[in-house]
Structure formats: structure tokens, C-alpha cells
């Protein structure tokens, strides 16, 4: 139980760090494209600043948003696993992907098509974010499988 909770928290933190990495990269790559002096130092300091501010200085802490999404998606996955014969890693990977997809697709509907996560404005950006959800969910499912072994 304790281990499950720890893995759940880790999976949420992995997703949070990856989503913020994508947001940072999206902004930095564009700045580079218009000849702004983005160095590795600027990139790293911006990423760490984003880790702090996107979880405590914005409208909604991104970690809380992801946690809610993952909790709902993982619960649904757990219920479905009773009837569907699929590996936990794959099931939770899909659940993680679905959670992030819901966040990037549903949030704009609530805000007149405004993408609050700027990194998710393009189809490529949305795809990358969903992939990161998949990776985080896969980690969680795999950790559950390891416990059983």
C-alpha cells in the first residue's frame, strides 16, 4: 500500500517534470528561432524556475492538475483490469496518456479555446504531452507488476 502510494506519487512527479520540460522547451526553442540568446544556463535556470512557479505561482498548480487526472484515470484502469486481460504496464500507460489528453483537450473548452499550457497549443505539442502521460503511466503499471513478482 505504502509502495503503491509512493509509485503513484512518483508517476505524478515524472509526468509533472516532463510536462514542464516540454513547456520550457517549447518556449526556449521559439526564442532561439528569433535569435534570443538562450544558453544552456538560461535553459536550465528557466526549467527550474518553471518547476517552482508552475506548481506554486500560476493559476493552477500543474502537479495538482496532473494528480487529479491520474487518480481518475488510474481508478478507471484498475476497474477495467478486472475484466480486460492486458498487462498493467500497458493499461496504466494508456490511462496516463488519457489523463494528459483530457487535460490538454478539455481545458481549452472551458476557456474559449485558450490553451493554458502554451506547450500544448500545437498538435505536435499535444502529442508530446500525451506521450509523456503514457511514459508516466507505464512507469506506474510496471512498478505494480514488479511488486507482484
Amino acid at each position, binding site marked *: 500500500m505504502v509502495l503503491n502510494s509512493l509509485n503513484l506519487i512518483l508517476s505524478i512527479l515524472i509526468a509533472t517534470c516532463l510536462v*514542464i520540460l516540454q*513547456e*520550457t522547451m517549447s*518556449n526556449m526553442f*521559439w*526564442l532561439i528561432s*528569433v535569435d*534570443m*540568446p538562450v544558453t544552456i544556463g*538560461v535553459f536550465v*535556470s*528557466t526549467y527550474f*524556475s*518553471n518547476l517552482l*512557479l*508552475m*506548481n*506554486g*505561482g*500560476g*493559476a*493552477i498548480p*500543474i502537479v495538482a492538475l496532473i494528480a487529479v487526472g491520474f487518480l481518475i484515470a488510474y481508478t478507471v484502469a484498475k476497474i477495467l483490469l478486472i475484466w480486460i486481460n492486458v498487462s498493467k504496464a500497458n493499461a496504466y500507460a494508456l490511462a496516463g496518456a488519457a489523463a494528459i489528453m483530457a487535460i490538454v483537450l478539455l481545458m481549452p473548452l472551458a*476557456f*474559449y*479555446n*485558450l*490553451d*493554458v*499550457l*502554451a506547450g500544448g*497549443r500545437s498538435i505536435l505539442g499535444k502529442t508530446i504531452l500525451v506521450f509523456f502521460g503514457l511514459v508516466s503511466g507505464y512507469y506506474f503499471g510496471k512498478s505494480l507488476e514488479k511488486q507482484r513478482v
Partner: protein
Amino acid sequence: MRKRILISIGLIFSIHLIASEENYAYETLAEDLSHPWGLAVIDENNIIFTELSGNLRIIENGKLNPEPLSGVPEVLFAGQGGLSGIILDPSFNDNKRIYIAFSSPDAGKKTNTLEVVSATLNSGSISNVKTIFKASPSRRTAAHYGARMAFLDDGTLLITSGDGFNYREQAQYLDNHYGKIVRINTDGSIPQDNPFLSNTAALPEIWSYGHRNLQGITVVDGVVYENEHGPMGGDELNIAEPAKNYGWPAITYGKDYSGATISPFTEKEGMEQPIKYWVPSIAPSGMAYYDDTLFPNWTDSLLISALVPGDVRRLKVENSKITEEEILFSDLGRIRDVASSPDGTIILATDGPNGKLIRVIKK
């Protein structure tokens, strides 16, 4: 960081934050208005104004006409969109022409854009409605239209066009109208001295660029002042000039609403600095220049209405520097627009579904 601190200390000592020495009172001109947004003062007893929900209203001889003016084009009333900016023609007394900016739904209504029309004001209606500007390309969002206007001394019309929120990077490119001030003649044609006319990659209407959501613009002795919303922090007051790049979003003093850093840079060569910026945001919403003497302490000041927390900022600008700043009318809530009347009083539009038009009079 050290530079920012030094600038902040410098500003503290160079700007005189003063308490108002004027005695004033409020007189309600109209109430229960549906999101009043833009207002234009015809004379001291006649004011025409927009409601974001799509109504064009008029106060005639000091009384609100209960019926909205007819003949207004269809508007998209959603998010921040709707019937927005309004301005009188410089020769209004002779030609009765007005100009209205609004968010206009495209066919199929999945996209929309900023549109400006000219029209003739009649009793109870407008007529001869003609589209003179449509921002390109259209957008899927219903935010950041800009939609304010001002006339230059040569009779050309400046229109503010916001970045559409999702399209912020486009403010740096000249092949679109996102995040721009555009300049056109009142018939919609392009002035032959527009700054990017010879640039075939640029849209010919563009006058300045690198803006975000410009909600106030006024011209004082040929100097164009514009204020714009930053994201979370970084609202700006700029002196706008042709062909200049105001930096958004490559440089900014604000953060994204998610908390993310949009840009870690606040300055770059070739990009203009604001003459003032606000962190945290005040959400500047309209601007007027007060040159009357009814309130002598306020003469020759910029008045900027603000939505957060809700007040009017009075700023005195000398040699492109703010020399005085004062917070006025902070007991009215969110203020959407401000104008000065020929009798020296000040007209305010409060924001929201139960908005008011208020006249500030001498006590």
C-alpha cells in the same frame, strides 16, 4: 536581477506617488448596462457607447435612450469578444461618422476576427455601415482582440489588434495582424507612407508590432500612447512609433498564467522598452488624455482605466518619463474605459453585466 532591482529603486525615487488634492463626486449617467466597453463623448450631454454583448447605446441630452441603436452588424459575444471600441470621426460634427471595432464571426462561426466598420450615426440607428478593416488571419480563440482606435493628426486611423492569446509568437512576424497596431485611411485604404509598404512579406496596414493585448490608445500632440495587458504581470505603457518592435513575447516583464516563463529576457536591442510596466498586473483597459482645467491638478495627465483591482491611474509624462502617478476612483470596482468630456468632467465605464456609466464632477 540586480539591474531590475536598481531600476525599481530608481523608479521609486523618480516617480512622485501623490494623493489626490481634488475634491470630486460621482454622478451616475446610466446603470444596468451589459458589459459597457467603449465610449465616445460627442459633447457634454451626448455620449455614445458600446456594450460587449452587441448593443450600441446612446445618452442623449443627459438621458440614456432605453433602445439600443439599430443597424449594428452581427458580433461574436463570447469570452472577451463582442462590440468593443468606438471612436468619432475628427469631422463628426459635419459628417456624423463613427467607427466601431468588434469581434466578427466568420461563416460557419468556428473562427472569428477583429473587424472595424465605419457608419453614419442617425437618430436611433446607424447606417452606411462599411467594413474598413478585418484582421487576418482569423482565430479560433475569443480573446485578446485589442479593438481600440485613435486618430493621428493626419486623419489616418490607428487600430489595435491583439495577439489572440494562442497566437502570441505571431506578434513578431509581419505577415499577420496578431499583436499589431495597424494604420489605415478612414475608407479602408492603405496610407502610402505606412512603414512596411515596401516590404512585400509584410501586411501593408501594419504600423508597429510586438504587442500583446492593447486595450488603450490615445494621441497627444502627435505622440501615440498605448497600454497593453501583459500576461501575469508585465502590463505596459508604451510610446508607439511606426515600424518599431515592442518585443512581445520575446521580451516581457510577465509570466504565463500557468506560472511558466514565457521569456527570461526583458530587453533586447531593436526592441522597445515600455515607459512604464506594472508587476503585478493592473489590467489596463482604456486610456484618455485629460487637458481640461476643471480638475487643475490633473491637467495634462494620461488617465488609464484598470480592471485589477479596479481604478484609474493618472500619469504625468514628461520627456518620455513618468513624473507623477496617482490612483483615482478605486471605490468603483473594475473600470473598463475612461474619457474626458468637453466640460472638464471625466466619464467612466464600469465593467461587468451590471455596468455603469459614471461622470466624475467637481464637488
